[in-house]
């Protein structure tokens, strides 16, 4: 069935169709609509779930961890400062190997108070052990959320999954989305089998003291799980093809014979699609590599492109005192010619014309903060 709705409505619908046992969430702009829709689904009897109203995002994640520890499938959603408040619990969920699925609607960090799109919220959670996806359309939000449960709950992964998309640019924008039948989603998602669980008949605790003789092995297994997730994400993406759209780690467009490839995430990646078409019409051999999965980092997929093309990396985030996070990681991970740019912080508009201009600046050997340092 094709419907037209905002990414937030679509996210709520996808979460509902994944049949979580427990939802714990706290409202925050621009994510609030998701929680409101889910509350409505529970209220009118369309969704049979335990809906826990909490007093903060820290508590929302703690509640999801507790529920997950008892073997429940969980969902929550947040943004910006809400995500930052969860930080401790994000580490906790990953270390406890509880595959919570969460939407984060990317929003700038204050002060000053900004509600607009910016990836610094989720980039600040880079090292928590969560898988991170960045969506570029409402269809991809739906597809990725359903897939997130199958990926995170996979016995070779067992890690929480963060599904990110841009505040307002996607969250409050209506687009057409193909929504499958509930039966197709039920068939796609096996019942959740936790890696360990709290059971009154077989008492067990997690989070007890762990000495230096075991801690590294626990961390290493999480790192291996992230590496294994690369293949599993691709497999699950292919399995979903035919029900919805199929996706991999990096979404490439007109890359094969490109001289320079634009690398971006989220809605910037969608906008760059148009920029590539325009550049191609002008006779420039441009391509696009939209990074859909940031954790695990798609080193191999990006290197395959870097082998034959230079890369214009556009970060909608900044690690202050260093550079854009995506560009920094690419410089560390790849043998590549990289032209890094910062653009669109705090929701500053980045149109396809801006991206064409960034491409031109890269051709001239320039780099930096677009509109601030270079125009």
């Amino acid at each position, binding site marked *: 069935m094709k419907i037209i709705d905002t990414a937030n409505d679509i996210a709520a619908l996808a979460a509902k169709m994944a049949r979580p046992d427990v939802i714990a969430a706290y409202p925050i702009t621009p994510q609030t609509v998701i929680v409101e829709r889910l509350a409505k689904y529970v209220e009118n009897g369309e969704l049979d779930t335990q809906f826990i109203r909490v007093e903060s995002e820290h508590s929302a994640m703690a509640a999801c961890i507790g529920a997950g520890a008892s073997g429940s499938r969980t969902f929550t959603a947040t943004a910006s400062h809400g995500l930052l408040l969860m930080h401790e619990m994000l580490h906790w969920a990953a270390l406890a190997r509880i595959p919570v699925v969460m939407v984060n609607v990317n929003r700038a960090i204050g002060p000053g108070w900004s509600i607009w799109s910016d990836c610094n919220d989720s980039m600040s959670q880079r090292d928590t052990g969560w898988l991170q996806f960045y969506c570029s359309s409402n269809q991809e939000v739906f597809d990725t959320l359903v897939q997130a449960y199958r990926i995170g709950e996979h016995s070779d992964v067992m890690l929480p999954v963060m599904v990110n998309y841009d505040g307002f640019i996607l969250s409050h924008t209506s687009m057409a989305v193909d929504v499958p039948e509930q039966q197709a989603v039920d068939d796609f998602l096996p019942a959740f089998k936790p*890696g360990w669980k709290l059971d009154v008949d077989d008492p*067990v605790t997690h989070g007890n003291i762990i000495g230096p003789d075991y801690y590294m092995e626990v961390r290493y297994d999480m790192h291996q799980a992230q590496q294994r997730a690369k293949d599993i994400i691709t497999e699950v993406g292919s399995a979903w093809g035919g029900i919805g759209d199929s996706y991999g780690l990096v979404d490439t467009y007109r890359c094969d014979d490109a001289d320079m490839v634009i690398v971006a995430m989220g809605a910037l990646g969608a906008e760059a699609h148009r920029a590539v078409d325009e550049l191609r019409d002008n006779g420039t051999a441009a391509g696009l590599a939209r990074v859909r999965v940031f954790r695990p980092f798609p080193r191999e997929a990006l290197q395959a492109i870097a082998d034959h093309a230079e890369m214009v990396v556009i970060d909608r985030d900044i690690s202050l005192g260093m550079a854009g996070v995506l560009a920094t990681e690419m410089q560390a991970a790849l043998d590549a010619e990289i032209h890094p740019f910062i653009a669109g912080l705090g929701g500053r508009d980045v149109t396809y014309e801006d991206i064409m201009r960034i491409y031109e600046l890269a051709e001239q050997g320039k780099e930096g903060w677009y509109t601030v340092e270079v125009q």
Partner: protein
Amino acid sequence: MKTTTSKPEKAAMGKTGSWRVFRPTLDEEKCIKCWRCWIFCPEGAIERNDLPCIDYDFCKGCGVCATECPVDAITMKREEK
């Protein structure tokens, strides 16, 4: 998946009573057997016999029992070295 869980077991960390600095001491004459000490002890280190019986192998000396006692039958005394 590799992770760490623990099963309930008595004294996995050894006899935690050795951590104690102050020792709860019961005045049997004053005790009215209300069992508030037994209810509030966070370590489960008080047994309910004829009178409250403190297990000094595991009592960490937190003093909750002494605070909760309504008749001041429990006093906290510094452990002798």
